[in-house]
């Protein structure tokens, strides 16, 4: 059957379609929804630019673990938590504006690195089930995060300002305002083109990260990671320290996720202390998958296509849902369903493919053996 598929032009298109089912589905959904929603083009464009600037950095942080064959890093939530802790601290030190953002990024590095190290070490103990483990790690660390932020900030970690602290004297309020930091990076160097505001500096930072990733792939470490991602055993035989390489990839991802969260929150202008990070992993992963990435392969192109399509759907769904069914909640639920659904489908496709490859390899081996025997 495979040889049949390889020949001819028609099957090629089928293959192309099959490999890009998810993005195509989204393009169709969005194409249908845009006229129904009745949003103006400039409004949509403005929203899209804002959201691309807000989310791309976070999603890019997922690429490195995929390269190292560790699947979708649900543990990026750890980086998001580190970013939030760093921002809470800088907000308490009253360092605002760009220096505040830079300081928060610096503060977040050791926290992210430590959490990443922990996550990487645990994932090395659970090879072959990294995703579910990283997913549970994010839940577990959420408990630790609450312990730190809700109980230890105040008595153990000094917090001075009552605007941040809960009235009871310890713990952080549900929302921490970053008003003096709000969009400081976005607004610097921002330009207006035909009513669409473009946050040039943010986009430049994202571009720099893209360049870094492209460069990193070519370094020795990057090559090692790809080797580890291809085949653990072969990489080990080639003299690569597999465990160390995997830990580095997770640490890098966590640190980048921390930066991404800080960029995200400076755009939002406030921190929802106990919920900002909880959904971020899910939305970033869904966006990446919508862009056509899979569990084992993801490119920078997937990130941008994904963030565009996914957030377009996000803006459109509530309004369209309300227009069609007369109930605004339907759209809300619909977009949550789509996020989960996309991840489910991607995971299923990945596992089915993995199994098919395995059985193909088994058949090949059998054939070779039979040939040898007949000789």
């Amino acid at each position, binding site marked *: 059957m495979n040889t049949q598929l390889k020949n001819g032009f028609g099957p090629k298109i089928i293959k192309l379609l099959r490999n890009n089912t998810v993005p195509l589905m989204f393009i169709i959904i969005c194409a249908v929804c845009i006229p129904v929603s009745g949003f103006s083009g400039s409004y949509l464009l403005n929203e899209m630019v804002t959201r691309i600037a807000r989310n791309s950095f976070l999603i890019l942080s997922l690429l490195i673990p995929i390269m190292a064959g560790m699947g979708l890093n649900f543990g990026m939530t750890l980086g998001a938590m580190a970013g939030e802790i760093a921002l809470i601290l800088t907000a308490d030190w009253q360092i605002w504006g760009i220096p505040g953002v830079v300081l928060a990024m610096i503060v977040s590095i050791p926290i992210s690195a430590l959490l990443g190290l922990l996550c990487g070490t*645990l994932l090395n*103990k*659970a*090879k*072959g*089930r990294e*995703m*579910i*483990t990283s*997913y*549970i*790690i994010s*839940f*577990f660390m*959420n*408990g*630790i995060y*609450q*312990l730190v932020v*809700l*109980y230890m900030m105040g008595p153990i970690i000094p917090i001075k300002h009552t605007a941040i602290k809960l009235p009871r004297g310890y713990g952080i309020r549900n929302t921490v305002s970053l008003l003096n930091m709000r969009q400081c990076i976005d607004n610097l160097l921002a330009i207006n083109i035909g009513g669409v505001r473009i946050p040039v500096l943010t986009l430049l930072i994202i571009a720099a990260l893209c360049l870094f990733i492209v460069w990193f792939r070519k370094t020795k470490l990057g090559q090692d990671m790809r080797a580890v991602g291809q085949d653990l055993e072969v990489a080990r035989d080639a003299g690569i320290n597999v465990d160390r390489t995997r830990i580095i990839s997770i640490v890098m991802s966590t640190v980048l996720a921390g930066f991404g969260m800080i960029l995200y929150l400076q755009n939002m202008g406030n921190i929802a202390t106990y919920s900002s990070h909880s959904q971020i992993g899910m939305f970033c992963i869904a966006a990446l998958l919508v862009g056509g990435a899979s569990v084992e392969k993801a490119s920078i192109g997937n990130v941008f296509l994904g963030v565009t399509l996914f957030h377009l759907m996000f803006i459109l769904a509530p309004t369209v849902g309300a227009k069609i*069914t007369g*109930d605004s*909640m*339907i759209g809300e*639920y*619909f977009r*949550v*369903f789509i*996020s*989960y*659904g996309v*991840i*489910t489908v991607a*995971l*299923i496709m*990945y*596992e*089915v493919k*993995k*199994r098919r490859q395995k059985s193909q390899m088994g058949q090949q081996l059998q054939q070779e053996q039979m040939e040898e025997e007949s000789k």
Partner: protein
Amino acid sequence: MKEKTIAVEKDNKLKKLVKNFGLPRLIITGFLLLLFILAPIVGADFFAQLTNTINRFSWNAIMVLAMVPMIQSGCGLNFGLPLGVIAGLLGGTISIELGFTGGMSFLMAILIATFFALILGWGYGWLLNKIKGGEMMIATYVGFSSVSFMCMAWLLLPYHKPNMVWGLSGKGLRTTISLEGFYDKVLANFLKIKIGSLEIPTGTLLLFAVLALLMWAFFHTKVGTAMTAVGSNPAFARAAGININRMRSLSVIISTWLAAVGILVYEQGFGFIQLYTAPFYLALPAVSAILIGGASVNKASITNVIIGTFLFQGMVTMTPTVMNSMIHMDMSEVIRIIVSNGMILYALTRKTEATR
């Protein structure tokens, strides 16, 4: 090298005991014992606490029991429990919609839920057979996507019963539905024992005992043994002529059905049906309970269920009261999150269990 370590282990029996039982389990058991000792000291009513623990045990035990078949057949921890829960919720709401009341509504709810659980469980089992090796992650997301899909369905399905739908618009189910007049505490009040402040919901415990006994008996039948064989050694099972996919499907269906019954029993104890996003994270407490009870990712028994549910629910009920009266600080929620997820993490990262 390996022989050496085994010899060392033999020398140190205590160490071996700790290793077998698992340090986290030991800590949790110790923690619970400490709570029980501290409770009277800090002035909490011991029997009221015990009643609470037993009550919560009776609500949750069947959902924990639902973990057993899938673990035994090698499908791993059933993070897809919410799928079965949805079957149960459909059963409960449809039974009320059809106008049944009292104990009859509970029976009908179970009957209708069984119908949905069979269909959903069959599909779920078919899916899990396609993706052997990646069950747990996909199960998690099957659970999530089905819950979020049902969020839309609860709004759109044609329910009309006035005590279930939103008052203003007259359509779309409410987020919480009171079961008063329907199957609220039908099991708990059956043969209820009351001694002072100690109350025992005999009916609920009886139902759990019957189901647990059936499960135990099932794993001693030919089919049950075959199922265990599939889980512990698939190659051997295939050689023995066992249809692996059928065994796995069967275990998934049983698990889904138990989850459906489990949520109905939970509702009758709790007194409310919770819809929409409520079932999202139901799997985690059940998973961690059975792990605390001593199960691993590929081995579980009824004893694990009973011990685990008791320890977990004991911890959940005791921590707030004891903590509050000791340090005037309610850290129970945080402790619950850390303990339950820590336990799952521990089970997932044990080297011996990772390579199968």
